[in-house]
């Protein structure tokens, strides 16, 4: 795992991610004002600028912004892992079947995925969450709906490459049952491109979830959600600039770190040239 610290950029990204994960897990114990983090308002000291007492200042309901951001880490990580996790599982399953079986199943799965991919994926999620009703879980489902096709297509392409390799043909010729071939040979050899895609997607999902929350279709107040917090500070941007700026910064850093990690992973596994 030494590639995590192979150059300055990647090591900074790894540190950010480390911080992000620890905040997500131990948030409540680290946050200076755990109650406010969870949502209790404290009206009398609203709009305090960043200072000693409240490092990042307080929001319109007087809650300490730093604790709110710390509390916001958990849902952000959760939605990223959940969306990418489910999307990857569904996509890999369908991609493997399409890739190995071929024939009409392959066509059906690929046509459906292409259909989903012919939409700007975020739009699909927005529409889905509107009809599902706002909320973190619905946002999660909406994102999964528009995300699985990327994985289906990726795994299908990689699976058909591996399927044409001699070692698969030999196993098939020996009479190894299809199921074992898919699990033992194909799945184990598509994991590399899968991991690289997952790492790159984690960031993009946080970005998408943040956008949903910003419009108000993600988790609802008073829960601490970075996208929501940016929206809440939107109209105060000229005076109480810190509310939107710092919560937005949290999203940006998390997404940036994941993207850099994605690049590092790609270089590690396919060192030829750093490609997008």
């Amino acid at each position, binding site marked *: 795992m030494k590639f995590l610290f192979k150059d300055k950029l990647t090591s900074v990204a790894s540190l950010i991610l480390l911080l992000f994960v620890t905040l997500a897990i131990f948030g409540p114990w680290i946050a200076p004002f755990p109650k406010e983090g969870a949502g209790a308002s404290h009206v009398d000291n609203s709009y305090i600028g960043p200072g000693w007492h409240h490092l990042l200042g307080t929001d319109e309901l007087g809650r300490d912004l730093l604790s709110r951001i710390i509390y916001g880490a958990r849902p952000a990580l959760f939605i990223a892992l959940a969306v990418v996790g489910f999307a990857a599982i569904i996509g890999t399953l369908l991609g493997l079947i399409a890739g190995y079986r071929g024939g009409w199943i392959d066509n059906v799965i690929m046509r459906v995925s292409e259909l989903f991919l012919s939409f700007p994926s975020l739009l699909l999620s927005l529409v889905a969450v509107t009809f599902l009703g706002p909320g973190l879980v619905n946002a999660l489902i909406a994102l999964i709906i528009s995300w699985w096709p990327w994985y289906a297509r990726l795994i299908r392409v990689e699976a058909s490459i591996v399927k044409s*390799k*001699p*070692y698969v*043909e*030999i*196993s*098939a*010729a*020996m*009479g*190894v*049952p*299809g199921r074992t071939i898919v699990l*033992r*040979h194909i799945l*184990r*050899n598509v994991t590399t491109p899968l991991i690289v895609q997952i790492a790159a997607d984690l960031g993009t999902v946080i970005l998408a979830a943040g956008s949903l929350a910003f419009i108000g279709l993600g988790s609802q107040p008073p829960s601490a959600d970075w996208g929501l917090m940016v929206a809440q500070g939107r109209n105060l941007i000229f005076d109480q600039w810190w509310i939107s700026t710092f919560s937005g910064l949290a999203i940006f850093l998390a997404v940036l770190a994941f993207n850099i990690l994605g690049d590092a992973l790609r270089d590690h596994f396919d060192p030829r040239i750093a490609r997008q």
Partner: protein
Amino acid sequence: MKKVVMDISHVTKKFHIRNSKEFFTAVDDISIELFEGEVLGIVGESGSGKSTLARCIFGITAPTSGSVSILGQSLAGKRRKSIRGLRSNLGFVFQDPSGSINPRMSVFDAISEPLKLRGDAKGEITKRVEFLIDRVGLSSNQLVRKSHELSGGQCQRVAIARALATNPKIVLLDEPTSSLDLSVQAQILNLLEELRSDFKLTYFMISHNLDVIAHLSDRVAVMKDGKCVEIGESASVLTNPQHSFTRELITVHSQNLESDPILPPNFDLDHWQDGPLNKWAFQNISKFLPVQEIAPSTNPFQFHQQPLEALESLSVPNEAQRSSLIELLENTHTDAIVVLRDGKLAYEKYFHGMQPNSLHLLQSISKSMLGALFGEFIARGVIDPDQTLGHYVPELKTSVYGSATIAQALDMNVAINFSEDYLDPNSEMARLDRACGWRHNFTGEDLGLSSFLPTLNGNGEHGKAFQYCSANTDALAWVISRVLGKPYAELLQEEIWKPLGSMYSATVTLDKDGLAVGNGGVSTTARDLALFGQSLLNHGFFNDQQILPKAWVDATFNGASKEVLVPAYLSSLHPEGSYKNQWWITGSEKREIFAVGIYGQYMWIDPSTKTVIVKFSSIPIPVDPIHSRIHMSLFRAISAAN
């Protein structure tokens, strides 16, 4: 008959071309039988369908039509589980070493996969894998390695180990060594051969590399555009291809560029017959002289090996002392020696890069074949031996051949002014060489046989004295091709070479006008020439047909009549010796006869012990009495050995 382990009948494979309705036929109606223990080589260029054929045969892809049966059971259309048993008789080794092992699997897992599939017990598998890994020349601590930690050669060894796991009967080798370097390829080819003989395997091997195919296969199938254009014994297919594509493939492969074939740097047309150039020249006549091919028989005679132990330990009187057979062969610059005893191959050895299928110049042994040809046509009454050569070839009327008869020329009793001195550049012999194109013409000279032979004259009566003159044979060759209206090479091919059941083609050199050099231009392999000798031993009956007239053969054995004067060089060696129908007769009580060519070419036939000896050599000088004596005692020692 060998057991058929696989029967491929009318296998065809068609691929649908993407956005169009037509089909592309990759494999077109192939039927082949694979015999147990043989190596069948499939050769063809890229896109000839050889890989697709293999995939259909080994059940990797289903053929569009036709069927494949392994050990009698058909492969197609079976459920995966039931054919698994059948499939365990098959092993696979593919071209790309690193691609034939799952990069995520350890070597142990890769090799044990077929065994696990068969349901062997754990302990059993481990023991088997350890045995296999060692057998393919890898150490057991490589079992834990992954494919990217191994070199190309090592990966291929693992692939071979896996292929042998369920001790299959047939192994598919699809370009097994094409992506390996020469030295690693040699290691793998040796290993494949070892395993084949140890495990009694049958190989179905595909390669675009003709060398590999020629090296390893018993039989060869040549593929072009999906069809099998030729199939047969690798020796005959590779040395004497029937189909035009195979011939192109082979000539392209072995032959040098048209622009200038590789000649030794010091090659010179005036000195190629002398040592040391003749070591190369006698085996590569077609590279510097125009030749016509004499095609072999379509079902060649199968030699039975019956080695004569005594020959190994033979000691031969060599002038003052005695030397072993090998020493003597080496001292007399032997290129090849073949000994037949009762029609069976008793002894065979090759030197100076020569092989069973290499051709060697016969020099004057060629005359013995002309003699036989005349014997044939005289017996048929096509040629009257008492007629003069001039009668059949008017151009010769004004020369000595206007008065000499066919019979006299055959027995070399023509009184002709002809000095057979091989070393004097002005001798008639040298001029004959220039006429045959075997030496450079002097400036201004434009000799061909048809312009040189008519200039020969002689005075004195024919039939009285024996005078060895090569020109006579060339004249006779001219006569017979004029009478029959066919090139000399074709006559030899139809009348002698094919009926004999010869395995390899032969060649005869031509002069600038295309006339055959009958006196010494024939080149054959040692084995095929031995067949010719054997046919005389059997009174002309061989390969279950009467190839040469019995009367002619017996007359030849009886030798010439005693009145004919015999020169000292012959009588000193063979007191009762004589020359008849272009053959030398020792006149001894064993009634041996022989044919001899300059620089040490011999064919020795001893009816008393049913022995035929063929010996090609490249002695540095054309004629040497000491050598003649040594060869006589050598042949007599061999004939007597039993």
